């Protein structure tokens, strides 16, 4: 086991060849698998914000849940600070790992139990992990101030339906941070909020990350916020990671054909847009059940070669530190 790579201060999380396959059953027999995540490998450096970007159905949500330990991996390794989650018993994951990782979900209203007050919601993780009573109260007040819900006294006894989406999402972030985790996974944390609120929340999130030396995995379909908010971007397509690189670089000079097409299609507010017809990729993403051999993109790729139809490319590292899953860079 490459303990050195993962034990070093550099990478808090190392994912190796992770696969999450869901069996498709007809009556009692299995006729195939939905390959939601199909051979994903990456490192997450400590203290960085890594964005996982992709369209719906690409597998990013499943990947996030697997890293959280909420769904079991079919094969591969998820190594967190040197410990392989796939080999740990469930009780250890529940008792230890959940205190190390925090989750922020997309839907602010759905993520909060409607019958609990803000205080109750924030205290739950602490109760489960045995934080003593006085400490709990103290932390609740602290964290509420930190996420901008001041004065805390105004919020502790409110119920979720009394707060706005933006406020609730702050509570969600507070809840994710209350156990002082090392890694936070944010799954589309701002997609359901208004445009102006998004930036506010993400900025606050970034400040908290600096303060607590967190590592963040930011799952989204929105490139623009990914660029402004994260250090590194990973693009996912059809259950695989097709490009990894620093945020600005990937967007300014995308290397993978899919990334290129995606970025070219996303608009900035520009009055000239209405005069241009955008170039898009034909067709649709492939089925995740028993996909065809070769590169997942080849039926839609403008640069397709013969090799692409036969062999699946690996993640190739280019000279400037970018990793691209494409034969063009072999």
């Amino acid at each position, binding site marked *: 086991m490459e303990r050195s790579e993962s034990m070093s201060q550099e990478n808090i999380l190392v994912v190796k060849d992770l696969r999450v396959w869901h069996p498709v059953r007809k009556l009692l027999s299995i006729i195939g698998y939905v390959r939601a995540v199909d051979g994903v490998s990456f490192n997450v450096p400590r203290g960085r914000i890594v964005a996982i970007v992709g369209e719906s159905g690409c597998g990013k949500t499943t990947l996030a849940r697997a890293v959280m330990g909420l769904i079991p991996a079919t094969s591969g390794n998820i190594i967190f600070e040197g410990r392989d989650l796939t080999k740990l018993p469930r009780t250890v994951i529940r008792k230890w790992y959940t205190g190390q990782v*925090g989750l922020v979900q997309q839907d602010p209203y759905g993520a909060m139990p409607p019958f609990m007050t803000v205080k109750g919601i924030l205290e739950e993780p602490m109760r*489960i992990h045995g934080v003593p009573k006085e400490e709990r109260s103290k932390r609740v007040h602290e964290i509420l101030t930190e996420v901008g819900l001041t004065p805390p006294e105004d919020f502790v006894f409110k119920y979720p339906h009394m707060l706005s989406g933006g406020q609730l999402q702050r509570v969600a972030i507070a809840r994710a941070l209350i156990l002082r985790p090392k890694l936070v996974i944010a799954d589309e944390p701002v997609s359901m909020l208004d445009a102006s609120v998004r930036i506010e929340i993400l900025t606050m999130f970034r400040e908290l990350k600096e303060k607590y030396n967190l590592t963040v995995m930011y799952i989204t379909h929105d490139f623009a916020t990914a660029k402004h908010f994260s250090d590194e971007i990973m693009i996912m397509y059809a259950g695989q990671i097709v490009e990894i690189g620093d945020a600005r670089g990937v967007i300014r000079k995308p290397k993978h054909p899919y990334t290129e097409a995606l970025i070219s299609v996303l608009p900035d507010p520009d009055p000239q847009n209405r005069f241009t017809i955008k170039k898009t990729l034909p067709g649709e993403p492939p089925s995740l059940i028993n996909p065809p051999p070769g590169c997942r993109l080849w039926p839609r790729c403008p640069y397709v070669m013969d090799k692409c139809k036969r062999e699946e490319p690996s993640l190739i590292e280019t000279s400037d530190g970018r990793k691209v899953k494409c034969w063009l860079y072999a």
Partner: protein
Amino acid sequence: MSQRTLLLLRRALHYKSFILGVAILLFFIGLSVYAEVTWPFEEAITLWNNPEAWLEYPKFAKPEWITVFTGKRELRGSLILDSRVANLTECVVEVRENKSLIMCKDLYKMREIRSIGNQQILSGITEITFNYEYDEFPSGGKYEVYVNSTEKVYVDLVLVKPNGLEVKLEGGFYTTGAILRTLEVKPGELSRIQLNYAETIKKTYGVEIDVSKIEPVKLLFIDDKLFIEKNIYKPLNGTYRLISSIYSADINATAEVKVLIHGTIYGIAGTDRLGRDLFMAIAWGAPIAIAFGLTASVLSTLLTMILAAISAWYGKIIDNTMARINEIFMIIPFLPTIIMLRLFYGLDLWGMLWIIILFSVWGSGLKTMRAMFLQIREMPYIEAARAYGASSARIIARYMVPRVVPVLIPNIVTAIPSFVFLEAALAILGVSDPRLITWGKVLQDAYENAALTQGHYHWILGPAIALFLMAIAFALIGFTLDRVFNPRLREL
């Protein structure tokens, strides 16, 4: 959470239906308290199951307040004429403990001495007078003669009606012992009193009449003139004299006569075929119904909830197995099963309760609740809870159950009358606790004794109205709670 509950309960008070329901419920609770205070539980049961305790009560008596509507005057309870405390000249009607008692002062003594042959025969006469001012005939009656003597005693009992007609009740020799005679008669038989009456009429009016169709007690109180001339049955009002004479050679012979004349009305709810006060049955039926209904409803709902939560959360094998058990119980017919169990094993109320709960828990409620829990399981906050390390037990208890409770509470309340009715229905079918007094048992008794065809409506109406009111009370409370706890679901 409890703060919120109080708020919601206060909102419920805005609904008139809720207040009405609570009022009726409080009435029943008051009734229960009264029952326990007046007839403590064990005492009530023994009393109810002991026919001898009710001998002095009229049978099939209607509730007293019915005279408000009919305007008739009717005898309440029973007239008890007891010569043991007889007075020769003065008798007083005293009402003691809901019984009309005619008390006569001075002891019955031997008064006259006569000689017959070479034996000295002593005789004594007692007279009891009473007034009968009622528009209805008595419903029945009986008399007892206790003779205590070393020799034979001749007892002669005569009733003198206000119009002077004398009807002989008794005339014969008796030795020490008790003589029991009833003033009612079995159909097809003729009693001595009826024959005596016919004879008297023949002597006085010279008319032959058919007495076979009229009960002895009626003949004793009937207006003879109206009867003979116009064939009208009407009781004769006025002062009646009951004259008892005994003849004996023994100077110390005593004979005591006790006459019981049953009236036609009694109490708040009337009486049944044994003369039992139905109000006691109705009063005691209330706490039993509430206790049974509440226990059955709460227990079955709680158990269903726990099973549904486990089934929905753990899924796969556990879920599948429970679903199959559920389906099996949904198919097994409940009524025949419980009747069979009662027949083979004999069931008291507790046994019945457990079987009913068993079938309720594994019934269709389980499927619906499981569906509710499945829906809750998919909520993001459940996933969040797993993400911060909540155990399955914690999630079920603290995150899933509280979501379901506001739906459950109104269900529990509205289900109570179903269980109460179920117990009553089972009782009518014969499946009930043999000792306890329940409304169902009263109805069963009434049904088996053809109460409706015999015209004893009060016997059925009493428990029926009680059941009806209790059902309404819980239904009103339950529906209001439903609107208060689940506003979005119910307000159209």
